């Protein structure tokens, strides 16, 4: 088997888990199940093409176009697909509109279900025990940790993604944004506001 010094150096710096993944990849490539170049494309796709900027465009469109917002309420899968966002882990979409009366927040207590076509792959905290355990029993405590304190008159509705329905929160449009363009508005839509753990606006 070819073996050069560079490769050896590479190995010596890898953690046990990284070595295990590399060994599995090598085996699968050898058997012809996986093309490493296809893996490169997959990684690049989720690093640069499928991410929360997609969801932000959906939200900005909903803020500026009442007909689009209505469509999103009635058939989110189709309304989101019309902007080009569709596919894996977004097969059945539901949009949840936050209002002064109700604040929606999304979790997957059983695993890590998340609407990939509009938000990309989930952040570590979304998949980790602290959030998954507390979101359903103490949503207001969770929100406080994200710096969000809601009035007591606002009800909190937590959506546990137990099936293949994926939820996108449409946060409330920030005040004093009347003059902004759709693109400028999209810049105010942070990822967490579409999970429901923050409000829309620039994140400090």
């Amino acid at each position: 088997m070819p073996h050069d010094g560079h490769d050896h150096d590479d190995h010596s710096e890898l953690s046990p888990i990284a070595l295990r993944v590399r060994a599995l990849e090598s085996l699968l490539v050898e058997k012809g199940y996986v093309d490493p170049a296809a893996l490169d494309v997959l990684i690049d796709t989720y690093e640069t093409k499928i991410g929360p900027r997609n969801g932000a465009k959906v939200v900005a469109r909903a803020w500026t176009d009442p007909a689009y917002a209505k469509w999103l309420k009635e058939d989110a899968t189709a309304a989101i697909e019309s902007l080009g966002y569709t596919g894996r882990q977004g097969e059945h979409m539901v949009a949840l509109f936050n209002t002064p009366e109700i604040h929606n927040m999304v979790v997957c207590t059983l695993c890590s279900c998340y609407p990939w076509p509009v938000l990309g792959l989930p952040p570590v905290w979304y998949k980790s025990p602290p959030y998954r355990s507390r979101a359903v029993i103490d949503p207001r405590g969770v929100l406080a940790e994200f710096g969000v304190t809601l009035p007591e008159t606002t009800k909190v509705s937590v959506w546990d993604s137990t099936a293949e329905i994926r939820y996108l929160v449409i946060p409330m449009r920030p005040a004093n944004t009347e003059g902004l363009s759709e693109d400028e508005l999209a810049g105010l839509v942070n990822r967490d506001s579409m999970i429901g753990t923050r409000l829309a606006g620039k994140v400090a």
Partner: protein
Amino acid sequence: MNGVHDLGGMMGFGPIAAPAVEPVFHEKWEGRMAALVMAVPGDWSIDEDRAACESMHPAKYLKTSYYEHWLHGLELLLKKHTPDSASAMRPADIWPALTARRSYVRDIETPAAFAVGQNVRVKVMHPAGHTRAPRYVRGHTGEVVRLHGAHVFPDSNALGRGENPQWLYTVRFTAKELWGRANDDTVMLDLWEPYLEPA
């Protein structure tokens, strides 16, 4: 299975510690792992994949990162299945595959047993296999707020016993019912008909 993955309502895991900005993959191996799970041309379902990830020992599940759960799951699936090398994905296949329109909705002949507005109770049950009815709602009563049609039933599909489509409902539970809270907060879950009984 009453596994450690069923985390809803547990306590003691500490703060959420969410950075406002973080990379998609924190280490290179995470990206390779995620890509492998998406690329291997296996004949297993998403439900069997979830069941495989859930089969980790509880202590290990809690100590490891999510992509290590995926590694555990894929290693297990590869012991039971032989992927089809003729279906290996090439770079040009990725975008069409990731963005293909798919559906978990299936035809069903029996009518839905419950209607929007009706109260239902989640059965008290402890299946040994994969299920998507978390422990924290079992035995509790909620209101059907939406009917989604018949969807692939994970409890059957994860075991390789076919898709066995069942009616899927969104059910609303009050925080008072689930947790004894005094406020008007609610928790919504998507639950298949076999999990439910009339209340």
